[in-house]
């Protein structure tokens, strides 16, 4: 059991790490041709934290990460989208992790897919149209692919962090 202030310090370090991943992501000019689809490198930190930290801490990490990276790299609308995607994604991942029926890869895929679904729902709400549903196939496929990549990376990270629990 770690001291409260030690936990806080680790939370700060993880937040910084997630922010750096968000920054690195802005440097990668990958356009998948689908609006809203991106690699989601910061999710690597969230998925890893999901296995290594308390759930409420992961929520704090997720929200702080989204708000800060939105203020630095995006705008207030992008914060809204990322927040919806991030929170829905984290909730689904946490729920799937409970049953222990999925490996980190499956959980990450679900996270990637629901991140996109959350953003799509907010987009539907903001622009008041259902025609955005045209993007569903692309966003689902993109979420699966990026989730798979992040999941495999997280699996490798967790393998090397076996004896560490934050």
């Amino acid at each position: 059991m770690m001291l409260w202030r030690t936990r806080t310090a680790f939370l700060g370090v993880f937040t910084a790490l997630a922010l750096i991943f968000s920054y690195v992501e802005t440097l990668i000019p990958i356009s998948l041709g689908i609006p809203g689809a991106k690699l989601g490198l910061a999710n690597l930190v969230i998925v890893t934290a999901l296995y290594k930290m308390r759930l409420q801490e992961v929520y704090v990490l997720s929200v702080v990460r989204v708000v800060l990276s939105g203020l630095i790299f995006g705008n207030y609308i992008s914060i809204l989208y990322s927040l919806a995607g991030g929170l829905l994604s984290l909730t689904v991942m946490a729920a799937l992790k409970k049953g222990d029926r999925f490996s980190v890869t499956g959980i990450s895929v679900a996270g990637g897919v629901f991140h996109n679904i959350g953003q799509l729902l907010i987009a539907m709400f903001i622009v008041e149209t259902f025609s955005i549903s045209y993007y569903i196939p692309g966003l689902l496929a993109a979420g699966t692919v990026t989730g798979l990549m992040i999941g495999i990376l997280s699996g490798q990270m967790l393998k090397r962090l076996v004896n560490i629990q934050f």
Partner: protein
Amino acid sequence: MNTGIKKNDILLIFIVLAVAGLAYFLHSVIGAGGAGSVTVKVNGVIEGVYNLGEDQEIVINEGTNYLVIKNGKADMTKADCPDKLCVNQKAVSKKHESIICLPNKVIVEVNSGEKGEYDAVAN
């Protein structure tokens, strides 16, 4: 800790991709057939309906976005938003396809060829 892929993971991926495929199939079925026009909406309010048959250039939302209709396809050519997702998107022509510029709340939607109350039922 077991980090290997489990059977359920494969199942999950398969289900997601199946849903994606089904949605794509439904869209291509609904979208088939000749398209007639595009509706331009700003902030949920219809700004105009334009025929895809004639080539034209449309200034949307007092110049935040430019839409070009050429060879039966509508393409967003200019936008003042930072991400330029709508500009990078390919031209639309099929029914229910759309170009959406979220920062400017501009929606360009392709209407079906026929007009009438049946649209509501078909959707």
